[in-house]
C-alpha cells in the first residue's frame, strides 16, 4: 500500500502570493494513498529538506511528491534529500506549481490553486507507480583512438598518452604530419613549420603509450561510450617495416616516376616512396597503382637492391581490431576545387596555382628548392597576384563560409615571396582583411610595410593570357574602377573544404555532419569538442576551418575530455533507460530500426521454460540507451518500457484528473 508524502513549497512569495498553498495541502491530504502532507516556506532550504528526511522516516513513506518549482530546477536537490534519508532517490516526483501555475496564472488565484492541486494529484498518481532505480555503471576501456595524424591528431595523441592512457593513432597516408608538414613557415611568428612539427612527430613514434598505425583506415566502429570496438584496415605497404632500415636504396633505384602528392604534383616521386624526408615512420611504401611489378608482374628492382629483403610483393591488407573507450576525430581538410571559376581560366593556364602549391614552392625542402617559379616555363615570377576568397564567402560559385586562415597566410605569402625574390612585387585582391588573433593584425601590417605589396579591395572578374603574362582584371572598389594587373604568377587562396571522406566516416562512427561535410559538434558554444555521440570528440579542421593555434588548443581540449572520461573505472549513467519484457516481446525488431543510438540488439532465449526451441527478442544496451522512449511508443505489444516514464506512470497521471 502506497504511503505518499506531499511537500508543498511557498517559494517565499513566488508561489504563496498566487496559490493558496494551505488549500493545496488540504486537497493533497484527501488524495488516495497520501499519508502525509505539509507546506513550508522554502522546501529547497536545509530545514525544508530536513522536513522531508524526517517525514520519510517518521511516516514510513514509500514515495515523495514535492510541489515547488520546475523539476529542471531542484529535482536533483530533492533526490539527494531522499537518498540522505535512505530512500531510493527515484521515488521522488516534482509537481511544478511555480513555473506552471503561480507564475502564469497571477490574475486568478482560485484557478491557480485548483490547477496546483491537480498537478499535485497527477504527481502523486505518478509517484505511486514509481520504481526504485539505480544508476547504471558502465565499464570503461581506457584506450583512445585518434583518427588522423595531422597536427590535431598528433597533439591529441601526445596529450592523452602523456596522461599514461594508451592511444591508437590511425593515419591514412604513409606518414603522419598532415597539411602542416607541407607548410614552409607559419604565421604570425614565421617559425618554420617543419622545425616545430617534426619533433612532435618523432615523439609520437617513440611514445610508449602510442600505437602508430600509418597507411591505415578505420572501417568499422561498434559499441558505445567507454566500450567501443574498432576495426582498422592496414593497407598493404609491400614493405616489411620490422626489418626495413629506411636506407632508401629501393627508392633511388625505382624506375617508375609519378606525380608527388606531397609536393602537390609539382615534381615526381617514385612508385616506392616515403612522402618526405622527415616522414614518420620513415619507411617507404609501394604505391600499388603505379608499381610495374604489381601491375605487370615484372621489374622487382626494389626487391633486388634491398639488402634486408624487406620487400614483399605478396603482402595483403590486414584488419586490426582494438577495444577502445573514446574516439578523437581529426581528419583535417582538403582544398576546395576552384573549377567553377572558369573566368579565371583555372585548368587552362599553368601559371595559376593554389596557395598550397605556392607553399611547397617556397619551402626550402620543396621541389623548387625554395624559389617560386612559373610552372609553364620555370622562370622566376616578378609580379605575383594573390586572389583571396576563391570559393570562400561566395554563395554563387563557392561556399558561404569564411575559410578563416586565407587572409593570414596570404600576408605570409607576400612576405615569403619578398624574402625569396627581392625584386618581386605582390598584388593582393581581397574582400576584407580578417586578422583576428594574437599578433595577427600586427603581422598583416608588418607584411604590408615590409613588402610594399599592393592590396586591392575587390573581386577579380577575369584572367586571360597575353603573351607570356597573365592579365588579371578586377575591381578596385576603393577607387571604384576596373584595374588590370600584369602577372607572371597567380596564386588562388582556395577555400578550406572538409576532408572528402568525412560523410562516410561520420556514417560509420554514427555522428552527424553539416551540408558541407564538416562534422557537427554537440553544441556550438558550450560543447564545441564533443559530438552528439558520447565518447566521440572532434579536433581541428574536421569540425570547422581553423588555424594551427586553434587546432592545437582544440586537440588538447579533446585530450582533457578523454582523460576526464577515463578518470574512473566505470561511468555512471542515468537509470532512465528502456527495458524489455521478454515475455511479451515478439521480436519484430521495429524498435531496432527506430532507435537513434543503435542501443537495441537482439538475443536468443528459450521459447518457453526449459524448452529447446529458441526465439529472438530485443535487448537494450543500457550503456548506449539515452532514454528517449522512441522504442516504447512504437512497441505494439508494450514489451518495452522506459524507467522513470513508464506507461503505468503516465497513464496514472492522465487518469488522475
Amino acid at each position, binding site marked *: 500500500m502506497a504511503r505518499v508524502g506531499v511537500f508543498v513549497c511557498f517559494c517565499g512569495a513566488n508561489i504563496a502570493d498566487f496559490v493558496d498553498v494551505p488549500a493545496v495541502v488540504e486537497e493533497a491530504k484527501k488524495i488516495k494513498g497520501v499519508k502525509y502532507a505539509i507546506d513550508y516556506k522554502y522546501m529547497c532550504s536545509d530545514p525544508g529538506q530536513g522536513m522531508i528526511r524526517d517525514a520519510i522516516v517518521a511516516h514510513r513513506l514509500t514515495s515523495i511528491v514535492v510541489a515547488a518549482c*520546475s*523539476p*529542471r*530546477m531542484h529535482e536533483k536537490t530533492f533526490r539527494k534529500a531522499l537518498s540522505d534519508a535512505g530512500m531510493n532517490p527515484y521515488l521522488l516526483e516534482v509537481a*511544478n506549481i*511555480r*513555473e*506552471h*501555475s503561480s*507564475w*502564469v*496564472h*497571477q*490574475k*486568478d488565484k482560485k*484557478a*491557480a490553486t*485548483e*490547477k496546483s492541486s*491537480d*498537478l499535485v494529484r*497527477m504527481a502523486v498518481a505518478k509517484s505511486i507507480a514509481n520504481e526504485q532505480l539505480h544508476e547504471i555503471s558502465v565499464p570503461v576501456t581506457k584506450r583512445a583512438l585518434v583518427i588522423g595524424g595531422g597536427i590535431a591528431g598528433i597533439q591529441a595523441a601526445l596529450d592523452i598518452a602523456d596522461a599514461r592512457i594508451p592511444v591508437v593513432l590511425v593515419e591514412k597516408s604513409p606518414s603522419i604530419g598532415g597539411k602542416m608538414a607541407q607548410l614552409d613557415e607559419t604565421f604570425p611568428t614565421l617559425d618554420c613549420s617543419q622545425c616545430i612539427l617534426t619533433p612532435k612527430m618523432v615523439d609520437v613514434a617513440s611514445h610508449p603509450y602510442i600505437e602508430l598505425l600509418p597507411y591505415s583506415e578505420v572501417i568499422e566502429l561498434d559499441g558505445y561510450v567507454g566500450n567501443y570496438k574498432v576495426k582498422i584496415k592496414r593497407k598493404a605497404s609491400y614493405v616489411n617495416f620490422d626489418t626495413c632500415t629506411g636506407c632508401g636504396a629501393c627508392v633511388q633505384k625505382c624506375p617508375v616516376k609519378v606525380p608527388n602528392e606531397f609536393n602537390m604534383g609539382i615534381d615526381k616521386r617514385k612508385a616506392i616512396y616515403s612522402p618526405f624526408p622527415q616522414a614518420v615512420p620513415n619507411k617507404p611504401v609501394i604505391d600499388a597503382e603505379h608499381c610495374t611489378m604489381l601491375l605487370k608482374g615484372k621489374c622487382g628492382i626494389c626487391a633486388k637492391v634491398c639488402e634486408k629483403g624487406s620487400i614483399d610483393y605478396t603482402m595483403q591488407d590486414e584488419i586490426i581490431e582494438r577495444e577502445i573507450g573514446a574516439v578523437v576525430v581529426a581528419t583535417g581538410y582538403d582544398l576546395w576545387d576552384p573549377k567553377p571559376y572558369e573566368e579565371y581560366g583555372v585548368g587552362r593556364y599553368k601559371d595559376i596555382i593554389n596557395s598550397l602549391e605556392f607553399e611547397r614552392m617556397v619551402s626550402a625542402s620543396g621541389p623548387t628548392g625554395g624559389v617560386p617559379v612559373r610552372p609553364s616555363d620555370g622562370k622566376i615570377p616578378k609580379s605575383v597576384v594573390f586572389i583571396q576568397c576563391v570559393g570562400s564567402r561566395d554563395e554563387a560559385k563557392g561556399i558561404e563560409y569564411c575559410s578563416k586562415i586565407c587572409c593570414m597566410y596570404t600576408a605570409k605569402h607576400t612576405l615569403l615571396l619578398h624574402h625569396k625574390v627581392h625584386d618581386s612585387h605582390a598584388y593582393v585582391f581581397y574582400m576584407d582583411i580578417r586578422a583576428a588573433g594574437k599578433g595577427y593584425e600586427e603581422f598583416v601590417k608588418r607584411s604590408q610595410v615590409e613588402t610594399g605589396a599592393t592590396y586591392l579591395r575587390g573581386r577579380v572578374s577575369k584572367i586571360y593570357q597575353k603573351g607570356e603574362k597573365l592579365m588579371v582584371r578586377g575591381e578596385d572598389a576603393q577607387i571604384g574602377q576596373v584595374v588590370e594587373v600584369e602577372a607572371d604568377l597567380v596564386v588562388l587562396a582556395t577555400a578550406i573544404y572538409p576532408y572528402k571522406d568525412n560523410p562516410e566516416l561520420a556514417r560509420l562512427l554514427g555522428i*552527424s555532419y553539416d551540408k558541407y561535410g564538416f562534422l557537427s559538434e554537440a553544441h556550438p558554444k558550450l560543447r564545441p569538442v564533443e559530438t*552528439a555521440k558520447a565518447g566521440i570528440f572532434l579536433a581541428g579542421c574536421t569540425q570547422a576551418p581553423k588555424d594551427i593555434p586553434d587546432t592545437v588548443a582544440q586537440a588538447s581540449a579533446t585530450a582533457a575530455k578523454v582523460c576526464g572520461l577515463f578518470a574512473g573505472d566505470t561511468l555512471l549513467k542515468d537509470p*532512465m533507460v528502456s527495458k524489455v519484457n521478454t515475455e511479451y516481446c515478439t521480436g519484430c525488431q521495429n524498435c531496432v530500426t*527506430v532507435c*537513434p*543510438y543503435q542501443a537495441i540488439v537482439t538475443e536468443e532465449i528459450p521459447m518457453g521454460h526449459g524448452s529447446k526451441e529458441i526465439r529472438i527478442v530485443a535487448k537494450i544496451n543500457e550503456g548506449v540507451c*539515452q*532514454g*528517449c*522512449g*522512441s522504442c*516504447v*511508443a*512504437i512497441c505494439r505489444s508494450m514489451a518495452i518500457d*522506459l524507467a522513470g*516514464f513508464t*506507461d503505468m506512470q*503516465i*497513464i496514472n*497521471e*492522465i*487518469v*488522475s*484528473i
Partner: protein
Amino acid sequence: METEVKEKIVSIEKPHLEAPPDWQPVIMGILCNWCSYAGSDLTGTSRLQYPPNIRIIRVPCSSRVDPWFIIKSLQTSADGVLISGCHPGDCHYISGNYYARRRFLVTKKLLNLVGFHEDRVQFSWVSAAEGPKFAKVVTKVTEDIKKLGPLHLYKKENI
C-alpha cells in the same frame, strides 16, 4: 463562418448534457523535456500569463508519446490534448520528433474520422527559447476547446 460551423458542431458534439455555465475545459498537455517543457518553464520565469486549463505531463521526448495516451486522455479525463516537442532538426534525441510527427498526423485524422473535431487534439513545436510561443499556443488551444465545449463522447461516466 468558421465559428458558425463550430457552433453547429458544439451543439451536436455534446449530445449527453449541456455545459454548465462555470464549465472549464481540461486540457492534457504532454511536453518533451528538452524543448517544450523548458519552454513552458521559460513562460513561467518570464511571467507570461495563459489560461489555467492545461495540465502538463513531462515526457523525455515527443517520440515517447504513444497515440494511445491521446486516446486514453480523451476517453477518461481531457476535453482536449496538446502535444508539444522540439522543432524538426532540434530533437535532443536526433530523430525522435520525426517519428512522432508521423504518428500524430495519422492519429489526428483517424480521430477526426470517428467524429472528433480536429481542434480536440493539437500539436506544436516549441523550443526552449519560445516562452511567448508556448503561452500563445496554450491560449489558442484553450479557446478552441472552449468553443467546442465539454467532451462527453466515450467518457466512462456516460455509459
